[in-house]
């Protein structure tokens, strides 16, 4: 026989609860009683019907997310899971969502549609289109009489009055609203000349916003050929339209702000552009001026004037060198000439004649007579001695 400890069996029971799919994710309808809030901020109450009751806990963090907290006696629908609180040995309903019964049914419908469309891929982030940064024409699907449209026009006029607004008017609450919104989107599509569309409605009750949870509206937004911005209700309202839209804005005004650039920022950018142009230009001019100065001094360095001066000097040098060379050559020549004259003088017959020699010539032929064979008796001859000449006649042979 096995004997268990209380904690062991309690843990076993808890595990039985925790592996049960139904108990882990369920909606429960009932009437609230014993509603209380602990000092820590957690909420405890009992949910009951005619025959049974169950203890409920709503943690503080979850309580803060509820748009509506119930009072005793109120009929609600709540979502959560059932598990065991081991310390006290009780099972409890751990609530994460509370809706009043009427709204709660709508909410269930909403959740069902949301899951279905999500599964179909209508909310897929990869199909979200980016908005045109400078739209020319914006379609607005809303009521022409609501505050939403006025707010949108105010924001667009203040931020980016260059845009043209094309209103596709439609009722935004009541039974005609879903068809009206679908028709307005289709009219914009046929008109064909808008860059993006704002689908908007001011704040209201869940029932008043209900058209934006309509499947037809969701599909029409999905099918829009241009990006759609949703701006429905207040910050805390999420509609199916918000999930399908390419961009969700918390309010109509916010949708208008997202749709267009802000002219104040544009003006700053333009002014900044102008300053940058001026700075860039001044920078360039300063650089060119510096370059120019550099070129100018290079030019001075290389100018013909300095070249001419250089040549002139070289020419001077060369001339000088040529002249001194010439002078040197002249001196040498002169020396040589004198040597020649001296040599010539030493070879001259004059000196020989002075020593007593004479030169004898034929008077007629002027031939110098070096051999007796050249003369015959009776030939007229001329004899040159150192100081003059005299004539004679060959008289006799000496042989």
């Amino acid at each position: 026989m096995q004997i268990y400890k209380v904690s062991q069996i309690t843990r076993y029971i808890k595990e039985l609860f925790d592996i049960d799919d139904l108990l882990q994710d369920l909606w429960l309808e009932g009437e609230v009683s014993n509603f209380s809030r602990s000092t820590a901020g957690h909420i405890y109450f009992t949910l009951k019907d005619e025959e049974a009751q169950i203890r409920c806990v709503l943690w503080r963090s979850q309580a803060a997310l509820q748009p509506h907290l119930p009072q005793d006696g109120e009929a609600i629908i709540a979502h959560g899971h059932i598990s065991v609180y081991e310390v006290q040995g009780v099972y409890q309903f751990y609530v994460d969502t509370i809706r009043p019964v009427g709204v709660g049914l709508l909410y269930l419908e909403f959740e069902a549609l949301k899951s279905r469309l999500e599964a179909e891929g209508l909310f897929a982030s990869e199909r979200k289109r980016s908005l045109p940064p400078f739209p020319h024409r914006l379609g607005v699907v809303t009521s022409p009489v609501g505050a939403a449209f006025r707010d949108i026009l105010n924001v667009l006029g203040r931020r980016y009055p260059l845009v043209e607004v094309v209103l596709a008017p439609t009722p935004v609450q009541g039974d005609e609203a879903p068809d009206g919104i679908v028709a307005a989107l289709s009219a914009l599509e046929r008109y064909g000349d808008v860059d993006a569309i704002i689908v908007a409605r001011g704040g209201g009750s869940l029932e008043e916003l209900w058209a934006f949870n309509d499947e037809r509206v969701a599909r029409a937004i999905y099918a829009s050929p241009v990006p759609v911005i949703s701006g429905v209700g207040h910050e805390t309202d999420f509609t199916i339209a918000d999930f399908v839209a390419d961009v969700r804005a918390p309010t109509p005004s916010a949708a208008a702000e997202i749709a267009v650039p802000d002219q104040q920022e544009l003006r700053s950018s333009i002014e900044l552009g102008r300053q940058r142009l001026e700075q860039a230009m001044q920078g360039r001019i300063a650089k060119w001026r510096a370059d120019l100065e550099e070129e100018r001094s290079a030019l001075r360095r290389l100018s013909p004037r300095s070249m001419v001066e250089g040549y002139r000097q070289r020419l001077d040098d060369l001339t000088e060198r040529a002249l001194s060379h010439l002078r040197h050559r002249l001196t040498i020549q002169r020396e040589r000439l004198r040597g020649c004259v001296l040599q010539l003088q030493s070879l001259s017959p004059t000196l020989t004649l002075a020593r007593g020699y004479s030169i004898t010539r034929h008077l007629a032929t002027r031939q110098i007579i070096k051999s007796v064979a050249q003369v015959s008796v009776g030939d007229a001859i001329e004899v040159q001695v150192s100081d003059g000449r005299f004539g004679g006649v060959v008289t006799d042979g000496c042989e």
Partner: protein
Amino acid sequence: MDVSELTFEEAFHELEETVRKLEEGDLTLEESIALFERGMRLAEYCGEKLDKAELKVKQLISSLKGEVEIAPFEPS
């Protein structure tokens, strides 16, 4: 293209592009002056466009035959 023929968006983008080119590009003096003057004209033009802009509002009216007409918006 003449500046006055541009849309605001085109002029604004060209201004950004012109600033970038003048800041980065390896340009001749003539090119720089041309870019600078073009950029200044673009900046001027963009400012004027914003100054003169007035929000235009129209509304679509669907006829019974399902045709769509456009009309000035008359706030009621």
